[in-house]
């Protein structure tokens, strides 16, 4: 998305110079003034919405366009507008606000050593929250660490999320996983792995299982821009393409992979959605900061999958507004004001603007929501902390180290447990 420095400067030269390598990088580094005026933002409403059963070949332009519904003033337009009613939109706004407040609070708690680690999704809330609202119970997400919005939108108890983050006594994962590596089968949320991309093909497998069983449930795999370079991204595309699996393949392009700009993973391709083209997979590029566009595109892809139309690859264009994680400090590799300069705005502000403009909510409603999410997070936090935080209060027993390696503990492990004496 951001202009890839070296690419533009070198072009494809036909001169008789000997080859040299292109070294892609971000448009801006610390010290630069971020200026995204060259970025094509595409007009909201301009992209065609194909029938869900159209063949992928006929819509290849969507892989380099940008599906948008909301403009900067909060007006919705075009065929991708899902025409959600006001209560639904307010629920969506609430989910995004709750996600952001949750992140804010957990980040503070991490800084206070109540958790070992944390990862925010600031600026990317619309993607997970609106996507969730387009799914059905029984569908399964294979997320990365930055889709907490799926859980929040699904109504997963905040205090359980927090307990996981704190690794406390009520941590559903018994202290075994790093913070934010949730698992919640009943909420359509697959166990998160620390190894990038592995989940992407697992989601295809789950979708294949649905289809083999003749069910109309689907799967949704998730990956970041950087992780698309991992081989399991490709395995997923191959398997999905070969068997025409009912899966949505989501690429969240938030412009950064830790310190590395998305241009490094993207290479010579214009977009990540373009990757799908080589596999005959329907591919969309969508404004991920636009709640309505996300819902519209997700609903389209879900219906396509459910009606035997096969996989869809969606690139969600967004910006990672916060640090990569609590261990990261982006000031070493990007301008501090880059998030503010990002031309697609903030998803919460944009949906708020839309609601205010259309009368779906007034200022007071929004203010009430703001207070409500703070209250909810605070209440959950009190509840969760009563069960301990990383270094204080109740904690899962160290015997949990030995459980669940196998369904039944083998004698060799039982003897290690005895020796440990926990």
């Amino acid at each position, binding site marked *: 998305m951001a202009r890839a420095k070296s690419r533009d400067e070198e072009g494809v030269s036909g001169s008789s110079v000997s080859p040299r390598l292109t070294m892609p990088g971000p448009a801006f580094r610390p010290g630069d003034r971020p200026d995204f005026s060259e970025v094509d933002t595409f007009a909201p409403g301009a992209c065609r919405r194909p029938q869900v059963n159209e063949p992928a070949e006929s819509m290849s332009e969507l892989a380099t366009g940008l599906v948008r519904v909301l403009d900067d003033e909060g007006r919705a337009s075009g065929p991708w507008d899902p025409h959600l009613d006001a209560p639904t939109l307010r629920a969506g706004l609430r989910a995004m606000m709750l996600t952001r407040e949750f992140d804010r609070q957990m980040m503070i708690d991490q800084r206070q050593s109540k958790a070992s680690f944390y990862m925010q999704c600031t600026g990317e809330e619309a993607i997970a929250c609106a996507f969730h609202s387009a799914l059905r119970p029984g569908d399964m997400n294979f997320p990365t660490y930055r889709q907490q919005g799926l859980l929040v939108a699904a109504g997963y108890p905040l205090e359980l999320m927090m307990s996981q983050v704190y690794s406390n006594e009520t941590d559903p994962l018994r202290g075994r996983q790093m913070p934010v590596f949730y698992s919640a089968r009943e909420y359509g949320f697959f166990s998160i792995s620390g190894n990038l991309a592995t989940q992407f093909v697992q989601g295809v497998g789950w979708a294949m*299982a649905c289809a083999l069983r003749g069910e109309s449930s689907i799967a949704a795999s998730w990956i970041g821009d950087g992780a698309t370079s991992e081989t399991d991204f490709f*395995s997923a595309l191959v398997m999905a393409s070969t068997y025409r699996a009912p899966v949505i393949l989501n690429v969240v392009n938030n412009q950064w992979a830790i310190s590395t700009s998305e241009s490094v993973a993207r290479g010579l391709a214009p977009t990540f959605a373009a990757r799908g083209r080589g596999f005959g997979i329907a591919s969309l590029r969508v404004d991920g900061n636009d709640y309505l566009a996300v819902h519209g595109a997700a609903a389209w892809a879900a219906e396509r999958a459910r009606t035997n139309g096969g996989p869809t690859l969606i690139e969600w264009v967004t910006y990672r507004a916060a640090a990569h994680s609590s261990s990261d400090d982006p000031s070493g590799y990007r301008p501090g004001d880059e998030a503010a300069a990002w031309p697609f705005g903030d998803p919460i502000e944009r949906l708020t603007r839309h609601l205010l403009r259309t009368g779906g909510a007034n200022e007071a409603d929004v203010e009430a929501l703001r207070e409500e999410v703070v209250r909810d997070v605070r209440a959950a936090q009190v509840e969760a902390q009563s069960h301990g935080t990383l270094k204080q209060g109740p904690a899962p027993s160290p015997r949990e180290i030995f459980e669940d390696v196998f369904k039944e503990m083998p004698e060799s492990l039982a003897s290690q447990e005895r020796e440990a004496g926990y």
Partner: protein
Amino acid sequence: MVQAIRDAHAVMMERDESVVVFGEDVGYFGGVFRCTQGLQQRFGENRCFDTPITESGIVGAAVGMAAYGLRPCVEIQFADYMYPAYDQIVSEAARLRYRSAGDFTAPLTIRMPVGGGIFGGQTHSQSPEALFTHVAGLTTVMPSNPYDAKGLLISAIEDDDPVIFLEPKRLYNGPFDGRHDTGLMPWSRHELSDVPEGYYHVPLGSAAIRRPGSDVTVIAYGTMVHVALAAVHDTGVDAEVIDLRTLIPLDLTTIIDSVSKTGRCIVVHEATLTSGFGAELTALVQQHAFYHLAAPIERVTGYDTPYPHSHEWSYFPGPERIAKALIRVMQA
């Protein structure tokens, strides 16, 4: 043994709708070693199918299917080609139950032919069992005969956790005692080739004593069971030969009972020596039977080199090498 493996598949596909079988050349053709022949014809393309050549895709998709609730049983064409799937095996299948505290599990079986003896060179001869036994969460199995192959494969498919099922390819079509220059013997002339029809199982985690003896314990698995028996026969040493059948979980009791009795021990495998599973067996035996040991435990294994094509029989740890070790250990 090929027939026994086919049988095990068919029995389980019949009993349990959730068993699906796939891999490279596994569907229409029935596998390059023919271990899945007839399954697609009998159970249809939705239960047994061909895949693209993508070991990571095969195992990755299988993990997703298994998490969903199916019981995939997949084939890796040769164990030497499992490396692209290793991440999915080690980081995913093996740890899914643990990391999700049982929210998701991975009941899948990954079959692969192992071992040399067919002039397969470095990429059709490997025995990578130690790369699995080091990984917490994996069950690792290697049968030495048709009866066990069928019974263990049924147990593997029924198991609620991932199982690595290693098939010594040199045993597919007959027992093999390491004497490559004598004619092939068919399984029909071997006592353990009598495979009952229908369902039965051999439990995971239990070894078998193939020859009781009192002077030295020989621990082996897969092809090397037959080779060890030949060496014992040649030397006339009264050795007790243990066929592990399952490497993890290990039947330590059978091993330690034996070594406590014999006071001597040899460990045999085809894989390279260093950090092979024989190292673990040696470490365990010396730990648990230290005061019974009258001689150092010897390992007879593949050399620490890739499997060399035309030198195959100079590389293979055949009966002569084992015999020498038996004699050394008895004289120590």
